[in-house]
């Protein structure tokens, strides 16, 4: 329903207006491209801006430094925007891993026969959802050095567990439905039933479920960056900029205002996508449960 066939059907029904999965993906791709463009620009002019602003340590916002300057005299605006770009890239990469691996794992898990396996998988997910996952993520990211790849992989794997549980639940419902049994009874080859029903439904569900993971990916990337930054480890997202600002909290509060506001804006956009995708997923589940 929410899969590729759903997209095609809606694309036709709406007279060429892109349906919501394409719109949301478009927004993500645009964010990713903008982040990369900004990061490239930032790395090109990196050292020049430092020389130009020498002697302006912990400068409060004014006309030529609208967001202020940090302790090294760097203009905060390009720095914060570059950090926001890095946070966006990490979150979107984690989203992508959660989407792809979640679909594959959900398909695999639903292929396991027997009610005992089903019970075990559900119990695992119930127990896993009780853990304060930021603690777990912090341990595994800091243990592996706290770099870009470690953060992406840990956040992607945490999202994968959540997405695969949703996919698994959807496929369980799909297999109980009459249309699925009818498709099997008509003598369609097994691979076509698998492609047309299991994969399409799994991909659609994983897409929506991974959107519900995106705000957590943004927030946790910033949180992990903050933890790493306060401990003097290498990190380069909005959390790291906030960690730097935390050291001068009482002397230079502007150091935390701009990065926090940008993080809030990013989180707001991600939560809007989550609310939208979550509503579609619930509607779809209601349809399958009817």
């Amino acid at each position, binding site marked *: 329903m929410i899969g590729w066939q759903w997209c095609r059907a809606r694309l036709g029904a709406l007279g060429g207006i892109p349906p919501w999965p394409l719109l949301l993906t478009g927004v993500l791709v645009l964010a990713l491209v903008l982040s990369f463009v900004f990061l490239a620009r930032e790395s090109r002019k990196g050292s020049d801006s430092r020389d130009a602003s020498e002697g302006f340590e912990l400068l409060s916002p004014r006309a030529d430094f609208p967001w202020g300057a940090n302790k090294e005299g760097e203009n905060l605006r390009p720095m914060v925007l570059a950090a926001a770009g890095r946070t966006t890239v990490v979150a979107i990469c984690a989203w992508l891993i959660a989407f792809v691996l979640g679909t594959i794992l959900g398909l695999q898990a639903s292929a396991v026969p027997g009610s005992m396996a089903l019970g075990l998988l559900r119990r695992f997910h*119930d127990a896993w959802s009780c853990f304060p996952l930021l603690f777990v993520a912090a*341990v595994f990211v800091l243990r592996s050095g706290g770099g870009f790849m470690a953060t992406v992989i840990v956040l992607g794997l945490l999202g994968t567990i959540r997405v695969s549980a949703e996919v698994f639940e959807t496929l369980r419902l799909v297999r109980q439905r009459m249309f699925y049994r009818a498709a099997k009874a008509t003598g369609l080859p097994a691979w076509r039933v698998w492609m047309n029903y299991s994969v399409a439904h799994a991909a659609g569900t994983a897409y929506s479920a991974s959107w519900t993971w995106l705000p957590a990916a943004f927030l946790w990337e910033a949180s992990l960056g903050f933890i790493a930054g306060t401990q003097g480890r290498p990190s380069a997202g909005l959390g790291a900029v906030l960690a730097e600002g935390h050291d001068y909290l009482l002397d230079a509060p502007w150091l935390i205002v701009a990065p926090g506001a940008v993080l809030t*804006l990013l989180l707001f956009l991600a939560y809007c996508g989550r609310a939208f995708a979550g509503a579609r997923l619930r509607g779809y589940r209601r349809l399958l449960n009817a």
Partner: protein
Amino acid sequence: MKRSGLKNLGRDARVAVGVFGIGALLLAGASWRTSVDPAAGVAGGFQSILGAYPASLKLHFLVMAAVCGIGIPLGVIAGGLEVPWLRRGAGALLLGVLAVAPFWLGMLLIESLVNHARLPVIPPLVLGGESEAASQVPGGWMGWWFAGLPASVLAVPSIARVSFEVRRVFGEVLADASMTAVISRGLGRTRRVYRYALPASRAAILRTLKDVLPFVISGSLIVEWIFRYPGVGTRCFEALESGNHGYVLSAALLLALSVVCWRAALDGLEILFSARGRRRQ
């Protein structure tokens, strides 16, 4: 209803076993190819975690009280709004509040309270100072004051999250076809809400409360440290700094078990409410 509540309690017991299993696996994973002896870290740290846990429990209790006392009524009010654009606006506003990162809010609060209002925000006022200072928290009302600030920071996004979900569930219940029959009986709006819509959305509200718990506890890792609150979060933050990962994971295990206990308590509440509902009928 009663049977489903009991069933949930049984499930909680099985989940607790699962939490132990996953905790053991995580500890084994963290100790793989490290020079630090994880068993020593866990054994030595467990007593310290248990010592800090009452302070964290106080914090979590305050957050959950704020979520139940403010978040649910706010969601009910927002869900019951009859003007569509007003209801959507309330949803967008709640999303905006939800988007505020708790640790950023905490830093802003410290800055404004210390710099402008000159209030004692952190027990011994140290920013970036020694960790042992954090273990001194005054008792009595001042203790609640120092717990109240991080709790309020943690509560703001949690309240927004619960309100947003309650608003959605409540709006769906009010728009349901079964509500048309209730309206046709000529019942007033208040009676409709309290007699029919609230009991109908009770299970979903309890589910939302259960979901928000790990979110609150995860947030406490940074927020406790920012306020130098002597809970499990601060100790774990310091343990992360010293590379004692076994300590952090055993704290995660303990906190996961506390989430299971909270969930069991919420299931107990469900049993209680459903029994009251049956008696009324």
